[in-house]
């Protein structure tokens, strides 16, 4: 069956053919835990809902699902939702990201060792 033409979007995977289940597990790193915490806190404060998180994840498309890690997709979606709800502007984000990047070459340096 050509699953691309059955009226479903890419994320609606139930029933499709796929390979064996891989049980590799990774420990969540600090930056991933922080992304998770930002989702819980910002949704709890009413900046967006879990449906808003999912909308952006789904609109990012299948290529993002295949090429980005889980929390990479989450921070992209959280950011989009926060911009839409007016928490900050894209200009403010760009300026802050430039400042962060200038601090150093590793996560530890860029997050000021925290």
């Amino acid at each position, binding site marked *: 069956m050509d699953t691309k033409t059955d009226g479903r979007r890419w994320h609606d995977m139930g029933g499709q053919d796929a390979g064996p289940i891989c049980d590799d597990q990774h420990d969540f790193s600090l*930056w991933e835990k922080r992304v998770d915490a*930002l989702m819980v806190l*910002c949704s709890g404060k009413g900046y967006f809902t879990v449906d808003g998180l999912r909308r952006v994840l789904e609109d990012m498309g299948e290529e993002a699902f295949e090429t980005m890690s*889980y929390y990479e997709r989450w921070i992209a979606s959280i950011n989009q939702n*926060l911009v839409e709800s007016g928490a*900050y502007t894209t200009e403010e984000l760009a300026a802050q990201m430039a400042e962060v990047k200038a601090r150093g070459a590793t*996560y530890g340096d860029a997050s000021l060792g925290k």
Partner: protein
Amino acid sequence: MPHDHHDHLSPSGHPYRADDDTPLSYWQTMEIAVRELLVEKDITTAEEINAQIDAMDARSPAIGAAVVARAWCDPEFKIRLLADASAASREMGFDIGPMHLIALENTADTHNIVVCTLCSCYPRNLLGLPPDWYKSRAYRSRTVKEPRKVLSEFGVTLPDRMRIRVHDSTADMRYVVIPMRPKGTEDLSQDALAALVTRDSMIGTGIATAPTA
């Protein structure tokens, strides 16, 4: 060039954790920037973020196991759990959050298994964060179509006569399986029973562990 950890010491002189010991990525940069903007604008604080991480780290399948073990020991509690799993879990003092939680009881005739075909919805307040395989294309795609084959890949082979019910989660509705109580556990305490309840047995990709003699 050989990988030299001495090039990657933090300002405190310790090496970064291996999984953080990579060049700063675009998405990590975004996480730091978003977090700092939220703190700068008084939407949250560093302390609140740390507290949320600690709260999430503290959640593990042990919470779900305590609920299951009580359901095994306390028939009245099991009735309440099956009627409203959110309320019954809160009764034990667990923070279930806004999600609607549904408990599914395995019986001699029926085995329940949980999936989220659309995304990665999971009873995280009861079991902690989901395992990577739960979020994978393979598990999401195949569980609703060939649950017996999926179960066999987890080492679970069920008799053909046993019905398998597959439950597809949504963002607002999460499931937890109450596995069958293993035989020969009549004399065990509730705490000892909880130790037999594995994460996978509460997702439905496993069964509760047999007691050691």
